[in-house]
């Protein structure tokens, strides 16, 4: 009997390859390809007056220099608005190469193609672009004030504004016995995958077809976008994602200008062309996230129950909106977390600035929403002198209230309806894990030793696994090898392991016989992409459904061959046998042979399927009317709505009384993502998420100066935490299966990141007794905050509004 794979801590099958340097990333491919490099805008906001290519051409090995003027047809048109929304009244996107105006430092203006990257950069250095600088809009206050505009035809710099309201906010607020207002701020950060973006285009002149390798989170989306831009039939475009060294959101945006220009140039030049983004380019020309200013007013009763919650926030969307307003929509809706807010009104303004565009980064608007909600919870507890966990628990949605409809529209245009979750149980587990009740004793002991410690907490709910769909294709070869394909892409999450686990169980085969392909439009042309913690939920269920199709077919064919009823058969370790009579059996490889009637025998196994083998019924056609040859099957999973995972984190921090350095002493996570296909991978995802969360809480920010120059566009000055800065993460899991999908899964990819800033702020506030209203916070900032506090320029308590 094969052991069940789902639920096991199976070692990641991709690791030996990746850890021994045998991964194949875009930059490893395309030997002999020409290399592209770009002249990028040094100005945040400027008109392009003239481009002087000068003697760039004269460098031996330079093959092409392109400006916007050289671009034909749709390549010269603005990039698409990928996710339109009625509230996005003023969408703006850039061009593949800037034409009249540049709107952020790093925007591509000229493309050079040369024999190698060195030469391409030498040529770039010879090109002179004459700019007329325009006043830049940098930072949310400047965007909001709108004394200057990013786009002349976008009044107030407002790309979108959206108001949602549930209940009668005004009267609920007026009737509330207590009210508080908090002004909050979250800084920018970014996905910063270790592998930047990259594209390799191979134009086949004989075939008139294009193969594009890209470090993307969506191969099908990119395929459609590039085919449309280049005017090619879809049938002539293939997109393959090789190994990808992290995405975290930034690679879901498509097509990036380079993803259009590189294949276009390959076609024009009749030669492979490659572009590998360097780190500086990534900082100034990919995407950032997070930057928001928030104003929360809350009304509550003497017990700390929320009665009314009024949130207004201003979201910095950067220079363009190709990905629509998904991030602020998620903030507005997921802010509510596990709580019942009473009456709720949320309104946001998504604002243009002359900075790198803003698109989802792991957590995607949730960390900001969680920050707003959790800071509010702590403020209520402080005001009423109640335990912080108790205030949260009093506002929880109870398990028996599931499914719970928050009455809002979620990012997929569907109701924000929680399917399941047991928040009181999660909180109980967290309190036990961190030792919530014993903390005051620990604090007193630390104080006696001259140390300052604090405890923080944060809760979140995450809508995961949004549609529209993903597909699975399962194919059994005649030697028993099982090929599984799904179209969403993988960036290191372990899909080759977890999807194999699912198929091994569903089909009854050994894990090592299952081989998974992701993100290759040749293997699965229908797919959406990897984002919103949807890989396991969407493709996991899709491959399970596809495996069930194949299993049914295998049973039918084997039943015929063994002359028994399919109901009497079972499949284990790749062998179909009669239940209770293991001697009567046929292996899946042989079933695959029988599934494909042949005229020609290519090996001895195949002889059994040929026309003179006597294995068929002469009264029936070799392939039945409702059947297809081959032991394979395909199915799609398309849910009616997202499934909602949740988690609660707690941290113990120590702050240095003199230097204000912050150390995370403990970090505890309780996490519920429904059924865990592979608990080890779930924990790995949580650890990685917490690491990125710690970056956002204590280290990372995008330091723009007033002129819109990014002052820390390198890993020397952008302080992504090292392993030495990331605490050991203690985890505990609840498994509340989702009722929405066959496997009971919920997503786990972004979870770890979401509450970290809120939790660390809560812990620092607890240690210091000073309200923390802005994250990230550095030791110099905490040090300065202490001084302001001592001088009475910040108050410990929010005034009633």
């Amino acid at each position, binding site marked *: 009997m094969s052991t069940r794979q789902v639920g096991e801590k199976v070692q990641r099958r991709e690791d030996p390859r990746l850890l021994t340097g045998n991964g194949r990333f875009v930059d490893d491919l395309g030997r002999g390809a020409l290399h592209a490099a770009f002249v990028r805008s040094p100005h945040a906001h400027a008109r392009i007056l003239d481009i002087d290519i000068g003697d760039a051409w004269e460098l031996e090995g330079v093959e092409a220099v392109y400006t916007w003027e050289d671009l034909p047809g749709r390549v010269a048109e603005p990039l698409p608005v990928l996710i339109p929304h009625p509230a996005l009244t003023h969408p703006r996107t850039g061009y593949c190469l800037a034409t009249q105006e540049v709107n952020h430092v790093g925007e591509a203006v000229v493309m050079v193609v040369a024999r190698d990257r*060195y030469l391409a950069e030498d040529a770039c250095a010879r090109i002179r672009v004459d700019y007329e600088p325009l006043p830049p809009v940098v930072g949310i206050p400047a965007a909001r004030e709108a004394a200057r505009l990013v786009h002349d035809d976008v009044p107030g710099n407002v790309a979108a504004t959206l108001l949602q309201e549930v209940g009668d906010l005004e009267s609920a607020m007026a009737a509330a016995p207590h009210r508080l207002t908090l002004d909050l701020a979250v800084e920018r950060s970014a996905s910063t995958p270790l592998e930047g973006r990259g594209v390799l285009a191979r134009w086949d002149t004989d075939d008139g077809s294009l193969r594009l390798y890209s470090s993307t989170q969506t191969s099908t989306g990119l395929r459609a976008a590039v085919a449309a831009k280049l005017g090619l039939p879809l049938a002539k475009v293939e997109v393959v994602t090789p190994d990808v060294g992290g995405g975290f959101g930034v690679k879901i945006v498509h097509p990036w200008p380079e993803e259009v220009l590189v294949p276009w140039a390959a076609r024009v030049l009749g030669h492979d062309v490659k572009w590998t983004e360097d780190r*500086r380019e990534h900082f100034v020309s990919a995407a950032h996230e997070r930057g928001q200013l928030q104003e929360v007013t809350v009304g509550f009763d003497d017990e700390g129950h929320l009665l009314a919650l009024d949130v207004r926030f201003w979201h910095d969307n950067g220079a363009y909106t190709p990905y629509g307003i998904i991030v602020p929509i998620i903030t507005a809706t997921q802010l509510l977390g596990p709580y019942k807010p009473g009456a709720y009104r949320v309104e946001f303004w998504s604002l243009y600035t002359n900075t790198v565009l803003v698109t989802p980064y792991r957590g995607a608007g949730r960390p900001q929403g969680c920050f707003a909600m959790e800071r509010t919870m702590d403020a209520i507890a402080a005001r009423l002198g109640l335990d912080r966990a108790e205030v949260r628990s009093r506002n929880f949605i109870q398990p028996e209230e599931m499914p719970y409809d928050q009455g809002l529209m979620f990012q997929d245009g569907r109701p924000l309806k929680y399917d399941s979750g047991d928040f009181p149980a999660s909180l109980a587990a967290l309190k036990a894990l961190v030792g919530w009740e014993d903390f005051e004793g620990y604090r007193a002991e630390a104080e006696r030793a001259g140390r300052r410690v604090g405890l923080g907490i944060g809760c979140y709910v995450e809508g995961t696994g949004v549609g529209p769909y993903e597909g699975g294709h399962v194919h059994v070869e005649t030697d028993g090898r099982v090929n599984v394909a799904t179209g969403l892409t993988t960036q290191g999450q372990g899909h080759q392991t977890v999807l194999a686990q699912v198929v091994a169980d569903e089909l009854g085969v050994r894990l090592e016989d299952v081989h998974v392909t992701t993100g290759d439009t040749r293997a699965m042309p229908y797919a959406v992409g990897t984002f919103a913690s949807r890989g396991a939920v969407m493709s996991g269920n899709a491959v399970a459904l596809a495996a069930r199709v194949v299993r049914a077919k295998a049973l039918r064919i084997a039943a015929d061959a063994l002359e028994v009823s399919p109901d009497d058969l079972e499949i284990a370790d790749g062998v179909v046998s009669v239940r209770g009579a293991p001697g009567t059996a046929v292996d899946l490889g042989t079933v695959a042979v029988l599934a494909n009637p042949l005229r020609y025998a290519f090996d001895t196994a195949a002889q059994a399927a040929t026309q003179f083998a006597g294995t068929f019924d002469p009264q029936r056609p070799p392939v039945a009317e409702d059947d297809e040859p081959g032991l394979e099957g395909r199915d799609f999973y398309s849910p009616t709505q997202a499934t909602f995972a949740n988690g609660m984190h707690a941290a113990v921090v120590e702050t240095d009384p003199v230097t204000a350095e912050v150390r995370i002493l403990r970090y505890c996570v309780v996490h519920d993502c429904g059924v865990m296909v592979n608990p080890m991978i779930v924990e790995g995802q949580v650890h990685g998420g917490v690491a990125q969360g710690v970056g956002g809480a204590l*280290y990372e920010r995008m330091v723009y100066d007033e002129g819109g120059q990014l002052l820390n566009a390198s890993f*020397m000055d952008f302080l992504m935490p090292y392993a*030495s800065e990331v605490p050991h993460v203690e985890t505990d899991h609840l498994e509340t299966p989702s009722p929405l999908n066959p496997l009971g899964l919920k997503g786990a990819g972004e979870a770890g990141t979401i509450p970290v800033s809120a939790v660390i702020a809560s812990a620092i506030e607890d240690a210091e007794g000073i309200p923390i209203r802005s994250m990230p916070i550095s030791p*110099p900032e905490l040090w300065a905050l202490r001084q302001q506090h001592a001088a009475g320029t910040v108050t410990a308590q929010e005034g009633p509004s």
Partner: protein
Amino acid sequence: MKPAPFVHHAPRTVPEAVAVLAQVGHDGKVLAGGQSLVPLLSMRLVTPGHLVDIGGVAGLDAVEVDEAGVRVGALVRHAGLERHAEAADALPLLRQAVRHVAHPAIRTRGTTVGSVAHADPAGEMPAVLALCRGTVEVAGPRGGREVAAADLFTGPMETTLEPDELAVAVRFERFPAGTRTAFAESARRRGDYALAGVALAVTLAGEEVTAARASFVSVTPVPDVLDLTPVLAGLALPELPAGEVAELVRGHVDPESDIHAPAEYRRMLAAELTVRALRGLRDEARAGAA
């Protein structure tokens, strides 16, 4: 981020290296471990026409320990110095400090002499060289010379080395008998250039302090030495006048504000690190006495 074109020279001997340097003059740069120079080249912040790669030059890779101190050749990597037990015995400060230079991967390539030649005010080893009154051995077209640390550093990333000169070694001098040393720094992330750091040498006669000196990382334009003897001489370390020490340090350092920390914070940090390093020495002395 690819360097502009350059000619790569690979001399095998010091005279050859010096000859090439003399020939290319201001258009040349010595390439040692490359951990500072290569990023600058890749970002095209420097674009020398010639790189004189000393990686293959014979005889520059030795650490030699004698009565006077520790001589470190120009191809000794930070990691080699860190591991060198005899050097650590002779001058514990070397290991105390070099452990704070970057991360293991960088210490495996970066050279200690390169660090000194680069003269980054955020570098640990220039501060150590200054504190122990070390010297740099220089070879050049005009012959060899020795430059004392006090005469070497003229400003951030500036030294009295000429473009056609090669630093062949640095000599770290032993401290007087009875000296205890400490090194402390604070960086945003482990291994980063410090926001502030301090190297400390306290000489004791029995319990009593006879001399105390400090040099700093990231808070002074050049690693000049602060004499703490006036506030500490004659005291036993347990009587540490923390306030006076901090005051002296705050007056001595001259930090700049940058995106990572304002000057006032760095000033506070330098003072606090010095006091804590002194406390550490005190506790060490107590533990030694017990």
